């Protein structure tokens, strides 16, 4: 095969044992609907600096629902992904698979946005997942 498919380099056990850690120190502001808003300061990157100048104190706001806040609060570097999945399943009376799919996808999104990092025992990264439970 010319372009062989990339294998996921983390085993399922490793990805479940990973411990997400918040990378931003901003405080979550709770909203009336039970959700929250997280304001994150934007930093000028080298390449965007060539095109336009970002105003001082520019921020980006992320909106979380109640389930998102529950996950966010547990991204403390001590709680593993598996523990978060179990807590979500228990709190919202979801099946483990449903909780797993939505939690993993949410954590991947947070990691892509640079809001959380994963503390794992081996260095390789995980393949992206899909929202489909089956």
């Amino acid at each position, binding site marked *: 095969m010319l372009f062989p498919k990339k294998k996921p380099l983390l085993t*399922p*056990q490793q990805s*479940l044992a990973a411990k997400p850690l918040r990378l931003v120190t901003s405080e979550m502001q709770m909203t009336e*609907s*039970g*959700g929250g808003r997280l304001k994150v300061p934007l930093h000028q990157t080298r390449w965007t600096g060539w095109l336009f100048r970002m105003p001082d104190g520019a921020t980006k706001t992320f909106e979380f*629902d*109640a*389930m998102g806040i529950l996950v966010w609060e547990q991204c403390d570097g001590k709680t593993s992904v*598996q*523990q978060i*999945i*179990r807590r979500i*399943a*228990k709190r*919202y*009376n*979801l*099946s*483990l*698979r*449903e*909780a*797993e*799919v*939505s939690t993993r*996808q949410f954590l991947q999104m947070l990691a892509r946005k640079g809001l959380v990092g994963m503390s794992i025992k081996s260095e390789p990264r995980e393949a992206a997942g899909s*929202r*489909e*439970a*089956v």
Partner: protein
Amino acid sequence: MPNSKSLASAPRIPANFFAWQGWRLDLPPRWNPVKLEGDHDKGFALFADLVRPRLGIRWNKQRRGRLKLDAWIGRVLRDEVGRLAAEEAKPLPMPDDIWQGSTLYTEPQPPGRDVWIGYSRKSDRLVQLIYHAHRRERLLADTILPTLVDLPQDQPMPWSVFELSCIIPPGFRLHTHRLNAGDLSLTFLQRRRGAPRQVSVRQVAVAELALKRMPIEKWLDDQQRGSRKFYSRARKTTPLELALGERELAGISRLLKRRWRFFFMFRLPSRFITWALHDEARDRLVFVEGSDEQLVRDVAASVGHAAGVSADADRALDNEGADSE
């Protein structure tokens, strides 16, 4: 068409039961389906826990007249585990006498696969269970197999996948399924002369969060949006309440009528009725859409019947969670 009483008399299944395409099985609460393929006559289902695949189920229908059962079972077993291993398989008496040619192969040196094969006289299907054994245990023979039930097609059929469970009147086949995390739906179709009868069940979790995002009227709009090309909706919604034992579901319903300009499309049901219900006890939004009201009523009355999550299953999950934390 069966009435509510006949549906209510259908077997009640606890939440950790999985019911699909006419068979049902009691599975450990940590096992969930990760692959579901095929239809009633032929298909495959794979169950996994968070870490690894645990159980596969394959079913295949064969006309009884053409059947040489022993030869068929032998061939299937050889394909699965190889010739030498297939010779070591032993007959296994099943508690339910519908199973013919019940044969079990147990892997002597795990990790490997334990395989059970049996032919159901009720549905004329050969059912094959493949258990991925990682250490020597008799989970398949002692725990899983005694709960395997095959259901005839001429009776109301229970369906239960993840948290969505319902009982569908006889004659309906699964047409489509969409199983996304937090949004599960099954659509059933009964083919007949003229317009087919159709019923679909959708369940959205978690209702508390879903209703904060938009009110139930908007959810109903969203549910009916897919049919708006051929159907026009009634202006008014009707409030409704449904009492199911200890649970009370409240919601709204709305009628869709086929547009006049599609009068020639007699293969489409002339009307659809959609119920949007809030199941507070389970914290779920339930949508039932069907081509006639009695059908919708019957199916809605059965949605979530497996939701009384068995205390044992919950306790087991909590204990395991506490152990690992």
